[in-house]
Structure formats: structure tokens, C-alpha cells
């Protein structure tokens, strides 16, 4: 696997899908965005569900903008209602700067909802034309960034699916590709192992700092915040450390190049090939949008039987749980739990499926159903109260 066939973007990146993003820059534009998307195949709606105000929502808008410059996205239509401070140009400007075609519409300037939908359909047709004319190229594997995440973890995740994904990630890095994992809370208790893998002392200190920041966010005395799902525990995981130990296995064994920050002031992206950690959330819907924003073309996702899916970044699902595995799962790792299959064999299956998917083959549930494109952000006021630095 030295190359893949993808869509050449103006900024030099190469996508494995050729999609158009319809952005509702504020919650009031959601219906308009959906109406346009429903009539236009190959489009994905991303909504700022929160407010129409920019101050305090910089991180979320940053994730939205960066997701629109994902290699799988050819161009975007940005719509807002018009009475808030998140203007379409605020969102469209950085997307346009990557060379992608972007159109903007403000509902109250278009004489209302029906007119905006009508105009939006005209504008998006131009972007579709541009997307359809995108040249296909044989891209070197160094252009590939793979997101790695677990969801619905149980004991089999730590024994079967996560170690086989970790081995596949090691092989991808050896080929010259890059991979990125996140979910820092679920690496709590594994800092000493991760720090040994850091390429520099600076990265090692950053790992400590960002995992400890994440613990502060979730561990607030007197609050009853769930840090693991009930399903995780019914599946046999007793403590966050036990979950972490299993979660760590999916990051493989390669040196860690950096731990990428995602906050109100920045969204760091990989600069050289290799294995990365990031502040990608452990919450599934939001994590896929973080991976999209970081530039991942594809996600490897370990689970029991949950059909997690994202409309921008195809998700390859791996399960080692024979009681939960179902038609949604792309890779069957249950043989490892029965002592019949080796990690080596399953990691090869993962790479074979990945090779198909990055060359245009559909995953088990691509085009069928998707998680919501949740845009997660940290509350800047809470960050301040918890004394977590913004830099």
C-alpha cells in the first residue's frame, strides 16, 4: 500500500471522498441547510447548534471551519440567519483561502427562508460542478491521515480490537502514513508509557500537561459526571485505568510525534508523518468532527457492536465481541478472543479493508446512517475557573 487513488484538492491534500459541506453557521439556518442538502446528493450538513454569537464559541467555529477544509470536502455553502455575530464570511474566509469554492447566503438578506433555499440550490449547483471536475490522482501514502478511536469499549476491546488496530497503525506508520488518536481522559494512568514514546522532552511534558488538564475538566468534586458509560462497565471494565490500559493498545508502539491541541485559539495539525495524540474528545459524535478538522480521511474505530458512522470521514468498525458483533461491523476480531486468530492476521485484514476504503470502496454502513456532526467545545469560563491555561 504505497499509494491511493483520491481527489486532488487545491491545497495539496488528497481526499478519498468528494463531498460538499452545507454549513448552518447558526442554529436558525439548520432547516434551510437541510432542505438544500436533501435535494443535493453528495452533501453533508454541519450545524452550529449552539448560538449565533461568536464570542465564547471560537473553538466550535474553528472545528467547523477546519472540518470544511478536510481533504474529503470539495467546497462549501455557508448559510446564516443574519441577526447574530457569526457572519458567513467569518466561516467562509478560511475555507476559501484553501482554494475551495465557497458560497455564502444570509437568510434575512434573501427575503426569507423559501428564497434562501431556492438561491442556495442555484449556488450549490456551481460547487457541484467544481467538485465533479476534481482531478483524480495516485497519491503517495504519506498524504493519508488515519483517526483512531474506540467507542462502546468492553473487555474485548483491550484484548482483541484495540491491539489489532494498534498493530495496523504501526504498519501504516512504517509505510509512511500518519495516524492520530485522542481521548486523553482514557489515557489517564498511562502517562508514563506514553511519555517514553514521545520524540522530545517538550512533547513528553505536553502529554503530561494535556492529560492532567483533561482530568481536571472531568474530575470536579461534588459533580456526578459520567466518565465511563454504564455499557463500558457491564462489558467488564471496572475503572477508568482499566479502560485506559485497553485504550492505549490502539495507539500501537511507534514514537509519538506530538500531541495536537484543539482549543479556542488553535487547532494543531500533523507536520511530519508518524503517530500523533490529540485533544480529540472521547465523545463519539464530536470525536469524528475533531478527526475531520485535523484532516483525517478515514477513521479506524473499535467497538462491540455499535454502528458509529460519520458522513465526512468514513469509519471502519472493528469488533472483538462475539456477543455484540453485527452487520455494521467491518472487521471481525472475535477470533482473537476465542484463541483462533492472531493479532497479526486481524491487523492484515484491517489494512486490506482500509486499502479498499481509501480507494473508494464503501464501508459496511456508508450511505445508510450517520451520527450527528456534533461540534464539541470547552467552555472558556469553566476552563478559567479550573485554572487551565488557554495556550
Amino acid at each position: 500500500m504505497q499509494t491511493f487513488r483520491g481527489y486532488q484538492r487545491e491545497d495539496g491534500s488528497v481526499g478519498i471522498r468528494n463531498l460538499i459541506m452545507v454549513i448552518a453557521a447558526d442554529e436558525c439556518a439548520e432547516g434551510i441547510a437541510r432542505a438544500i442538502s436533501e435535494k443535493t446528493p453528495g452533501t453533508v450538513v454541519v450545524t452550529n447548534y449552539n448560538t449565533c454569537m461568536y464570542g465564547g464559541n471560537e473553538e466550535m467555529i474553528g472545528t467547523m471551519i477546519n472540518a470544511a477544509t478536510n481533504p474529503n470536502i470539495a467546497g462549501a455553502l455557508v448559510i446564516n440567519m443574519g441577526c447574530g455575530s457569526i457572519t458567513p464570511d467569518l466561516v467562509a474566509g478560511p475555507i476559501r483561502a484553501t482554494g475551495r469554492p465557497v458560497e455564502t447566503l444570509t437568510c434575512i438578506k434573501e427575503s426569507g427562508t423559501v428564497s434562501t433555499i431556492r438561491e442556495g440550490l442555484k449556488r450549490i449547483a456551481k460547487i457541484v460542478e467544481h467538485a465533479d471536475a476534481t482531478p483524480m490522482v495516485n497519491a503517495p501514502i504519506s498524504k493519508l491521515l488515519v483517526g483512531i478511536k474506540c467507542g462502546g469499549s468492553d473487555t474485548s476491546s483491550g484484548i482483541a480490537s484495540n491491539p489489532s488496530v494498534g498493530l495496523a497503525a504501526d504498519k501504516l506508520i512504517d509505510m509512511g502514513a500518519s495516524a492520530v488518536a485522542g481521548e486523553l481522559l482514557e489515557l489517564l494512568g498511562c502517562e508514563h508509557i506514553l511519555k517514553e514514546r514521545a520524540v522530545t522532552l517538550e512533547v513528553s511534558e505536553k502529554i503530561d500537561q494535556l492529560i492532567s488538564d483533561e482530568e481536571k475538566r472531568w474530575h470536579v468534586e461534588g459533580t456526578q459526571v459520567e466518565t465511563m458509560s454504564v455499557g463500558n462497565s457491564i462489558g467488564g471494565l471496572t475503572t477508568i485505568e482499566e479502560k485506559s490500559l485497553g485504550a492505549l493498545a490502539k495507539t500501537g508502539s511507534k514514537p509519538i510525534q506530538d500531541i495536537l491541541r484543539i482549543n479556542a485559539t488553535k487547532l494543531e495539525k500533523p507536520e511530519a508523518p508518524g503517530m500523533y495524540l490529540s485533544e480529540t474528545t472521547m465523545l463519539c459524535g464530536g470525536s469524528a468532527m475533531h478527526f475531520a478538522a485535523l484532516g483525517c480521511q478515514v477513521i479506524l474505530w473499535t467497538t462491540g457492536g455499535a454502528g458509529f458512522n460519520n458522513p465526512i470521514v468514513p469509519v471502519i468498525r472493528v469488533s472483538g465481541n462475539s456477543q455484540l458483533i453485527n452487520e455494521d461491523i467491518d472487521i471481525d476480531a472475535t477470533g482473537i478472543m476465542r484463541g483462533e486468530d492472531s493479532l497479526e492476521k486481524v491487523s492484515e485484514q484491517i489494512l486490506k479493508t482500509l486499502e479498499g476504503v481509501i480507494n473508494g470502496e464503501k464501508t459496511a454502513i456508508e450511505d445508510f446512517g450517520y451520527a450527528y456532526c456534533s461540534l464539541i467545545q470547552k467552555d472558556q469560563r469553566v476552563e478559567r475557573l479550573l485554572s487551565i491555561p488557554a495556550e
Partner: protein
Amino acid sequence: MIKALRLNAADNVATLLENASKGETVLVISEQNESLGELELLQAIPFGNKVALRPMKPEDQLIKGGVAVGKAIKPVPQGQLAHVQNIRSLNLDIPEVMINEIITQMEIEVD
């Protein structure tokens, strides 16, 4: 016979590879599939959950995969389920209401 997998020689728990009933004898195996001996379960233990291989006292660490991933909050006899009803995190606990929910949903026998 139902098997329970011990991941590391330092471990004091093994993971059940199938659902097992109270009083059932299970075969403890190593990562290399070697037999390590038999063990009688003091309570039903579902697939993926852990059985204590040795008795634990309060504050004793739970070792899995060679790493401490929790501590006992009450005595855990050999053959008992080691889970949320008798083990806590070393760093960050699950909220008490969720623990009760897990115990209810899993129908864990709490002594």
C-alpha cells in the same frame, strides 16, 4: 469448561471468556493458552468480567495486564467477581449513582 484469561503473571484477576454461573468451575489460562489451573466461582460472572484469582484485602491493588488499574474497598475472596461493587479507581471514580445502576443492571450479588 469455560475459560478465564489471565493476561500477565503478575495479575490477581482473570477475564471470563464466556458467561459463567455461580458455583461453576472455570479453567484459568495464560495468554499463550496454557492451563493455569481450575477455580470455582462464588457468584455468576458474565463474559468480559473479572474473577479474583487470589483473595484481596481492602486497599490491595487490582492488577490486570501487569498494571495496577484499581484497588479493593472490601475483602474480595478468591473466585468472586472483581468489579464496581468491591473495586474503585486509583484516580477518578465512577459516580455512586452510576455504580448502583451497574450493580442493578448486571444483577450483581452484593454481600
